């Protein structure tokens, strides 16, 4: 991990919700994370481990507690608001409705996405040249969306919307792509299509990516690095070689050793389509 390849650095990131009340929750506890350029990290952990909070901190939805630092491309961005950080960060959410605008056409959604990080002016938002660009970006999906640019996004299926959201998030090549359980609500077949698409885009655009998931199998199969979170801390951090030959039960063991707790959340073991209980392993 040479210094020059570092793309994103998190230093001492702590996030406390409901501070000073009896409901106080330490969602993130002094997290340090170094993300290299072109890393594809899968983050796994049970509910409340802090996965989504971590993505929200990177995206700037809320700031970390004092003392925490977020550095992208050598630039500190901790103080930047969410919309300014959008210049660096692309994001796909669990809910396909969040990543796209229903009452606007595919073309208009793509035009919104294209202008990430650029000054928006009084030019008409889509023209022939841009339509060709959208066509080219949507064709690889194989969903035919490129021929329906005028269609309102609200009339698309959840899977189609999520695929579109993914293309939109990567269209203007942000420095880092955040995937927040982006296939969790899709049916198994659509989930696979969106995952293949993710793989293709990340590969082709050499996109630095952080994917949060509930699904261990998914975390093992995708990405070059696997991070496991528990109670706001990173408890397991494996690189490509370390995770290469792992099976799900190895992960469970690694988790138990690292956290010092017995693994009880079997929702983590759910695969799309079929349920694998602890006893099956």
């Amino acid at each position, binding site marked *: 991990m040479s210094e020059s390849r570092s793309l994103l650095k998190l230093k001492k990131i702590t996030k406390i919700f409901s501070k000073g009340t009896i409901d106080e929750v330490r969602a993130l506890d002094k997290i340090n994370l170094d993300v290299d350029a072109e890393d594809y990290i899968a983050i796994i952990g049970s509910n409340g481990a802090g996965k989504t909070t971590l993505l929200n901190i990177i*995206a700037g939805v809320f700031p970390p507690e004092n003392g925490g630092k977020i550095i992208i491309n050598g630039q500190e961005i901790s103080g930047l*608001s*969410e*919309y*300014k950080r*959008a*210049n660096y960060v*692309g*994001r796909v959410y669990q809910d396909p*409705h*969040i*990543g*796209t*605008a*229903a*009452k*606007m056409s595919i073309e*208009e959604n793509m*035009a*919104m*996405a294209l*202008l*990430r*990080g*650029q000054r*928006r*002016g*009084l*030019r*008409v*938002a*889509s023209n022939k040249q841009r339509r060709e660009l959208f066509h080219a970006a949507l064709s690889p999906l194989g969903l035919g969306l490129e021929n329906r640019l005028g269609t*309102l996004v609200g009339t698309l299926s959840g899977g189609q919307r999520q695929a579109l959201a993914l293309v*939109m998030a990567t269209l203007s090549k942000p420095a880092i792509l955040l995937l927040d359980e982006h296939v969790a609500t899709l049916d198994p077949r659509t989930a696979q299509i969106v995952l293949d698409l993710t793989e293709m885009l990340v590969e082709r655009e050499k996109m630095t990516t952080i994917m949060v998931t509930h699904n261990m199998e998914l975390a093992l199969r995708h990405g070059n690095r696997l991070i496991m979170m528990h109670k706001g801390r990173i408890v397991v951090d494996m690189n490509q070689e370390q995770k290469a030959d792992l099976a799900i039960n190895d992960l469970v063991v690694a988790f138990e050793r690292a956290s010092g707790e017995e693994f009880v959340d079997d929702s983590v073991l759910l695969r799309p389509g079929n349920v694998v209980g602890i006893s099956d392993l």
Partner: protein
Amino acid sequence: MLDVAGHVLSFSFYEGLVFGFVAIGVYLTFRVLGFPDLTVDGSFTLGAAVAAVLIANGVNPFLATLAALGVGLCAGLATSLLNTKLRIPALLAGILMMVGLYSINLRIMGGANVSLLREVTIFTLTSQFLGLETRIAYQLLVAGVLAIVVFLILNWFLRTEIGLAVRATGDNEQMVRGFGVNTDMTTILGVSISNGLVALGGAVVAQGQKFADVGMGMGMIVMGLASVIIGEALFRPKGVARLLLAALGGAFIYRLVISVALRLGMAPGDLKLITAILVIIALAVPYLQKRVQREWLPPAARW
């Protein structure tokens, strides 16, 4: 008989055009931005008051109308700043501005009303210039040209990069922020433009009826909403251009219905109640339909 029908029709058409500015303004906030802005009642009168006082003081009526538009923009700016910078809920911010504007309008006019009976308005100026004799002819001409200009500008603006960001803000605020749009700015822009249009409507209406009155904006928001809802129901518009035309068309139908009802002997004082009932029915029907079909529906919005 035909004469009367023709007159009612052309007069409603004129009124549809001038109140169409209000309808388009309401469409911008309620439908495009999802910002229920009640400033409208105040900014309509504000536009009328500013234009009337300027004209009474000898200012060119077109300049006075433009000034009304500018002052309306400022009223919208104030409402949207209350909402975005001080986090006052949209509905309350609008009500606060509406109430505050009542006093401001009284101050501007120096009383409850200003007469334009002997003044040069955009209508009388045009009729002199073109030598048009019939009142309805030059009224239609002036209002029509203004409506076309407003339509063309908005139809262009809502397709520009900034316009797209404004529309997307009402559609999916989280997404738009995620693509680097300052949604406070787009909200401010949208609400300001909306109130500018409403004030423009007030200025034109005041010149058409030859007076401005402190109560003339009352219920304007409901009238605007009624127009938008009627337009949507009748024209089922898709796309920016048709949505704008639907707001204008809705305003025309609404004024036509009101004119006919007045001709048939409805007391003018009942007008606002009937409009309110119209809007209640229009808002309730989709919900009741879904209830009959036993669809799940979220509880009513508080704000």
